């Protein structure tokens, strides 16, 4: 009981929402990509680029907002590379996404070496060029807007049909190719914001591999949330809760070795994906171009 009351406090709620922020951005990004029929394994890479350039932008301008936008832009460019291969050249989407992740991992030290003469990290950000709470609100706001667009607007219908029945979209006079480009760029921008909230909000600099699999966990949240905005948001909060409990428990002496607790979110992700809490149906044309 002592442990439980120590875990569930106001600070716990705050740390939960902090942890959920990058996940929410990333899984909403994944929603745009996967709902339009493009398998998105490359979220991790887009987030890394977003995190790196957000930190660089905030360092240069001393404004977290400039960094945030720049991070989104970097994610957008990463997504454009993916889009070029997946939409134009029709390469295998899973392979292309994996290549994007590797590219981001290799590209980051290349940039930090040129800009800061370091082998992977950026210098630390001072308090004025970081966020204190804003990304949480933006993330929740963005999910609200996406919820509205997805369920109540024509855009949402186009998005869903691109992934379910592309031929129908063409028949209705929309170009699937152009719309997929738009959706993949939105996806990149959102994933970039997710990365930016890592380096500007959760941490205070960019460090190598700081996403730590969040791109994949976000994808799992998307699947777990049946590719729908509200359930996906709930799934993100669920994964963030596990993460927050894990971090909290590291500070409490429970007798469980720390690496075991660090593995907990990954184990839970596998269990969730295995459909032990209910199965979900992927968009019909996902991965088929």
């Amino acid at each position, binding site marked *: 009981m002592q442990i439980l009351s120590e875990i569930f406090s106001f600070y716990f709620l705050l740390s939960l929402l902090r942890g959920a922020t990058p996940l929410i951005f990333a899984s909403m990004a994944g929603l745009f990509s996967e709902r339009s029929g493009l398998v998105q*394994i490359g979220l991790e890479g887009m987030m890394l680029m977003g995190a790196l350039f957000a930190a660089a932008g905030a360092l240069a301008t001393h404004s977290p907002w400039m960094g945030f936008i720049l991070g989104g832009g970097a994610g957008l460019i990463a997504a454009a*590379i993916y889009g070029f*291969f997946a939409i134009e*050249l*029709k*390469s*295998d989407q*899973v*392979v*292309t996404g*994996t*290549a*994007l992740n*590797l*590219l981001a*991992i*290799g*590209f980051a*030290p*290349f940039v930090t*070496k*040129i800009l800061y003469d370091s*082998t*992977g990290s950026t210098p630390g950000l001072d308090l004025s060029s970081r966020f204190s709470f804003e990304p949480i609100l933006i993330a929740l706001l963005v999910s609200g807007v996406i919820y509205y667009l997805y369920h109540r607007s024509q855009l949402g219908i186009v998005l869903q049909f691109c992934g379910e029945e592309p031929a129908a979209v063409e028949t209705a006079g929309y170009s699937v190719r152009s719309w997929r480009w738009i959706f993949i760029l939105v996806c990149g921008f959102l994933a970039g914001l997710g990365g930016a909230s890592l380096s500007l909000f959760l941490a205070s600099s960019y460090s190598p591999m700081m996403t*730590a*699999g969040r791109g*994949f966990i976000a*994808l*799992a949240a998307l*699947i777990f949330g049946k590719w729908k905005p509200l359930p996906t948001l709930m799934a993100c909060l669920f994964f963030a809760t596990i993460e927050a409990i894990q971090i909290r428990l590291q500070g409490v002496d429970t007798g469980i*070795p720390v*690496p*075991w607790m*660090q*593995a907990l979110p*990954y*184990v839970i*992700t*596998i269990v969730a*994906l*295995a*459909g032990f809490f209910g*199965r979900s149906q992927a968009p019909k044309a996902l991965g088929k171009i």
Partner: protein
Amino acid sequence: MHDVGGCVIRSLIGLFVGLAISLSIVAFAGENPFSVFMILIRSAFGSPYDLGLALFYTTSLIFTGLSVSLAFQAGLFNIGAEGQLTVAALAAAATGVLLPEVPSPWAPLLATTLGISAGALWGFIPGWLKSRRGSHEVIVTMMMNFIAAALASYVVLDLIKNPESQNPESKILGPGYLLKDYDFVQKFFVDSPANLSLILALALSVLIYFFLYKTIWGYELRASGQNEVASEMAGISSKRWKTLAMTIAGALAGFVCVNEILGSSGRYKIGFSPEYGFVGIAVALLARSHPLGVIASAFLFGALQKGASDLDIETATITKDFARIIQAILIFSVAGATLIDFSWIRQKCFFWKKKGVTDANFE
């Protein structure tokens, strides 16, 4: 593979385009692309020691390349080779540390068996989840990678840590476990970590080639990868083959423990792998998942890995992480080149015409 020539040409086009793009990126950092290329070559083949190190990387990459290829052939994408080789190395190292008294011929066999079994288990879990529960193997294998890393840091740092070392590494294995006594490969490459495992890797490639292309089992595995419905109709249980393929893939990645633990360092060092598992994806793609192609492709990437290691010293702005960029760009360009459509060249080129353009393999 009905069109081997076309496959090789596509791979080579992808390779050259990828290399050209990667090297031109160097110019943005203010370096001369040509001199960077020469550094890569010299550092990989400059001396027997350099070549030995390149072959050492090649050996591990053959194992992970085979692992990814075999999964590809069954229609699965194994990005979990990294986790599979981690648990395999962990099992081999733990065996050697906890049972140091086992005599020589049995010790390496025991450690190898336990190692590849651990790798196979790490492949079986995502394979089973994929075929029985429909979980996406990419996400599951990625999660398994993180779990393996956590497991490794727990076992190595809490259970079998070397108290005399400042580095995060395990105790040294019992003397019977090391391959040194039998090792004739190492005599060619003095002081380098190249070892007997190279022969094992080559033999395994040939074995997998025969398995995939000359046995009914291999045929069933490939059939279930190419068309699940059709193979079910023909009485092939594609679910069973998908599970099995991931299990075998895990075992293949697990062989890295022979090269790294028993063959060279004799202990488990945290972070010993320069992401062999992920480079294995590039190896498999360039080889178009052909087990014999994996040998050539692994050698290329092994040389690249070694070549990049000198970039830190010899250039002002390029680090060894540049290898990662080249690998990624090669994956992009090879994956993009897969879809080069030769049909229009065939119509224009008279010597292609003899074969006829009847095969109409465009959709």
